[in-house]
Each structure stands twice: as C-alpha cells, then as structure tokens.
C-alpha cells in the first residue's frame, strides 16, 4: 500500500474504535454539548465585560476548545496507554506498519473528530442561541484546528510517556487538563478571572488555542482573524511534545 493509503487504512479502524467506545464518545462529544447547553442557557444573554460579546458567543469557542483538547490530547494519551499496556503497541511494532502511518492514522482520527465537534458546537450555538457563524475567519479556524490537532496530539503522546498504567491514565490526564480549562477562561469567562490566573494560563497552550478560536467567533473581529502569536505558542508546545515523545516513548508495557 502507498503511504497515504496506509494512513487511511489505519484511520478507518481508529474511527470505528472511537465511535464504538462509550467513554470516548461521552467525554469528547456528549460532555461538551451538555456544557454548551448548560452555560449558554444559564448565562447566554449576559454580556462578557470588556469583550462586548454575548456569553453564548463566548462559550462556543470555549466549548470547541474543550472538545478539541478532549479529541486530541486526552484521547491520544488514554488510547496510547491502553494500547501500550495491553501489549498491542509492542505487537504493532513487530508488523511492517511504519510508525508514521500508525501515528498518522491516530492524528487523522483526532482531526476528523475535532472537525465534527466544531461543526456540531457551532450549529448548536447558532440554531439554539443565535451565535453568528463565522465566514471571513473560516480559514483562520481551519489553520487553528490543524495547528491545535498537531500540538495537542503531540502533547498527548508526550503525556502517555508519563503515565505508568492504564488505571492511572484518566486521573493523570484530567489532572493536567481540568485546571487549565478553568484557568484559561474556557468554563469561567476571562473577565471574571484575576489577572494573576490568566498570567499563569498564558504559559500553556490551551489558553492560546482558546484565544485563537475566540477571535474566529468574535463578531468584532476585523479581517481574517489569524492569531499568529497564539498559534506560535501552541505550535511550540507541539514541538516540545514531539521532542519528549521521541526521547521517552515506550512500545512495551511498563508493568512487569
């Protein structure tokens, strides 16, 4: 098989496994939708101080951030640890499938799920809460999504290196991402957060990814809406993830 065909082959089975896995579908698809409906229904008509946009408009990019990080970082870390500890990763290593094709299939899966979530969250925001659909900023949204998928998948692989067992995967992964959602203004509007908190969040990619998405959905945005500074931060985290993965990745189970 040619290189793209191998990636596509792997992607097909990743898709099957993803949509058949109740925890994956619940946490990546249902959970963000529930949060969107909850936040937009409770606070939707209020205005976010300093930004001049409605809360419902603010929460669409916020929940997209939640869904994308879940589809990429969280999912990749959980799946890779599960595959490593079950011995399947080691087994895969013994087949002629090249490593890049395996990772390519995984990243494609994360990208497609992220894309589905962007469309779903935008549609719910628009039809239930009247959030405007971006038009001019769609290229910026796609670039943000591509950079985000690469970086958060890479960080998911890096995080898997630090997770010693299958049981430890959900608590460690949540311990990493949950505080960052809060600190980055994904759940609590940034106007309500003290500056010190945002300064901490500014060191991490979730905040920068969210800001890129926010600009895309902000009706006050003028022009194409590319947040190059934020995207650079996200991309650099992705590069760091690659370096950590290359150095510490393990194909064999950690136990025994």
């Amino acid at each position, binding site marked *: 098989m040619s290189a793209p065909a191998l990636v596509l082959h792997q992607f097909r089975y990743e898709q099957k496994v993803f949509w058949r896995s109740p925890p994956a579908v619940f946490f990546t698809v249902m959970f963000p939708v529930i949060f969107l409906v909850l936040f937009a229904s409770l606070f939707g008509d209020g205005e976010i101080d300093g930004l001049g946009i409605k809360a419902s408009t603010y929460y669409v990019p916020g929940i997209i951030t939640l869904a994308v990080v879940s589809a990429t970082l969280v999912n990749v870390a959980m799946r890779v640890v599960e595959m490593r500890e079950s011995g399947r990763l080691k087994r895969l290593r013994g087949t*002629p499938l090249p490593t890049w094709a395996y990772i390519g299939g995984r990243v494609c899966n994360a990208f497609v799920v992220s894309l589905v979530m962007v469309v779903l969250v935008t549609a719910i925001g628009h039809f239930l809460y009247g959030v405007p659909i971006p038009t001019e900023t769609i290229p910026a949204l796609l670039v943000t999504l591509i950079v985000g998928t690469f970086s958060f998948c890479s960080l998911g692989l890096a995080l898997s290196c630090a997770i010693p067992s299958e049981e430890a995967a959900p608590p460690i992964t949540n311990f990493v991402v949950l505080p960052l959602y809060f600190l980055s203004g994904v759940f609590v509007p940034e106007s309500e957060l003290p500056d010190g908190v945002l300064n901490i969040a500014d060191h991490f990619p979730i905040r920068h990814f969210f800001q890129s998405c926010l600009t895309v959905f902000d009706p006050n945005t003028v022009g194409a809406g590319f947040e190059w500074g934020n995207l650079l931060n996200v991309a650099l985290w992705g590069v760091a993830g690659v370096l950590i993965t290359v150095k510490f990745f393990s194909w064999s189970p950690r136990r025994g």
Partner: protein
Amino acid sequence: MPEPVISVSGLRVSYGDLEAVKGVDLEVSEGEIFAFLGPNGAGKTTTVSVLEGYLERDGGEVSVLGVDPARADRAWRSKVGFVLQECRMEGLLTVRETLEMYAGYYERPRSVEETIGLVGLAEKADERAGRLSGGQQRRLDVAVALIGDAELLFLDEPTTGFDPSARRQAWKVIEGLRELGKTVMLTTHYMDEAQALADHVAVISEGAIIATGTPDDLGGRRNAATRVSFEAPANGAGAGLEESVGGEWSRESGLVVLRTTDPTRSLNQLTAWALANDFQLEGLEVAQPSLEDVYLELTGGERGEGGP
C-alpha cells in the same frame, strides 16, 4: 545443508548487574517446530525478545532469516509473525475487522476468511473481540500472527490459560503450520505440548542451555530406566521378591518401585514370581520417564533468577 532459520551463538544479555542470558547457542532449521523450555525467569523470554528484535543484546552473534534482528527492517518484519506472552486485542473490533486491519499492513497477507477458519473462529467472525472467551481471544491472537503469511513464527506460551480442549485445538493449528512449511519457535512450560508438537527441544536454566535434542532423546530419556510400581503389600507378603527380580528397588509413598534398564526381563521375573507365590500386583504400572520427569530432573528444584 540449507542455512538455519535461526542461528544464535554466545548470546549474552544483562539487566544491570544481573546476567539473564549467559552464552546461549541455538540453531533452528527451516520447517521445524522448535520448543524452548525452561522455568520462569530462566531467560526464555529474554532470549526470544532478542530474536524478535525487541531487545538489544550485550554479546554474541544472532541471525534470524539471515538478518541480525537488531537491524530489522520492514521486509524482515513482514516475514516474522508473533504471539506475545501477553497481548489483549482491541475489544471493540470484530474478529474479521481485527484481521482485516492487520492484513492491511502486509504486502501479501493470507486470506482473512481462511485464517479465521484455520484457528476455528468462523462462527465468531462478526463477534467483537471483547466478547470472546479467553481461549478464543488467544486464538484470535494466533490468527493475527498468521495473517501476514510469515515464514517464521514466534509463539510465546500460546496456550497458557487454555482449557484442555482449546489446547488440543491450538495444537492442531500449530501442526497445521508445519504442513504449511512454516518454522515455529515455541516457548512453553507445558511438557506435553513440547512432546506433542516439537521436532527439537532446548532447555534453558539460569541463562544457559542445559540440554538439547528431540523430545524422545532429551536428557538420555530413551536409555533411561523404566519405572515399575505397584501398591506396597500388607505386612509379611512379598518377602523374598526383591532378591528374585533384578533392578533397583525403592519405596515411594505407599508404592513399591522398581527401576530397571532391562524392563522385558525384569517384568517377566516379577510376574513369574507373583504367580508362583500367589501374590497380587495391585495397581501395577510401567512407565518410561516422561519429558516432564526428565525436565524436572534437569532443572531440579532450581529457582531461576533471570530477567523478565
């Protein structure tokens, strides 16, 4: 003489200060089933991991299908199949999907349907792997090892946890591999499995090979003493028997045991004496030492301290 499929000389592997494999030599010829036996921690899995290309060695020469597995490439990987000691298949894919996925990794895979049939999972082809029994999951694992149509298969304890009928079925599959001309390196700690399947056997203990041969010859088994036993008679009976029959006599938990290298003559003397003295040989048994007896004697009481 064709080139051996596996050739190992002076293999050494250490984990830190611990020398797990201390100079192992092995040779496996094309088309044979080679059983690699040894207690847990004796260095079996360490040796096989080197041959599979998973583990770096500290010394010695290794050639598998003419290639040093430390420098294995995609072409080599497509010629070698594995059943690892522990591997849980993806529970959310069906048997057929699992095999179709792995088949896609190879240039010339076996037919998926045929392979499902070969391991006896035809009725479960559309069942998700997570719903199969332990034995059926292991058979799926074997099917995945076969799907690439590899020339050489490493089966690491492929029947551990099987019930007796599942084991017989797995043996049939492995025998089928011989008919397909495959070379099989089988790691096991079931002696009956080695006896039933293997052309050659090597026993490893504490990181070194202590015996090699065919299952029938191992450890001088063919020439070993035959064991004759019967229940010890009540007080007084059987006096004078031991002087009348040649061999080495002993008592083992309620049994009288005779070890003899000339069983035909000894049995004749024993039964003649019994008839003449109106003596019943209750629970009479005649046994050649089993592969297991030889194995236990070879590895006797040793607790391996090797690597994983």
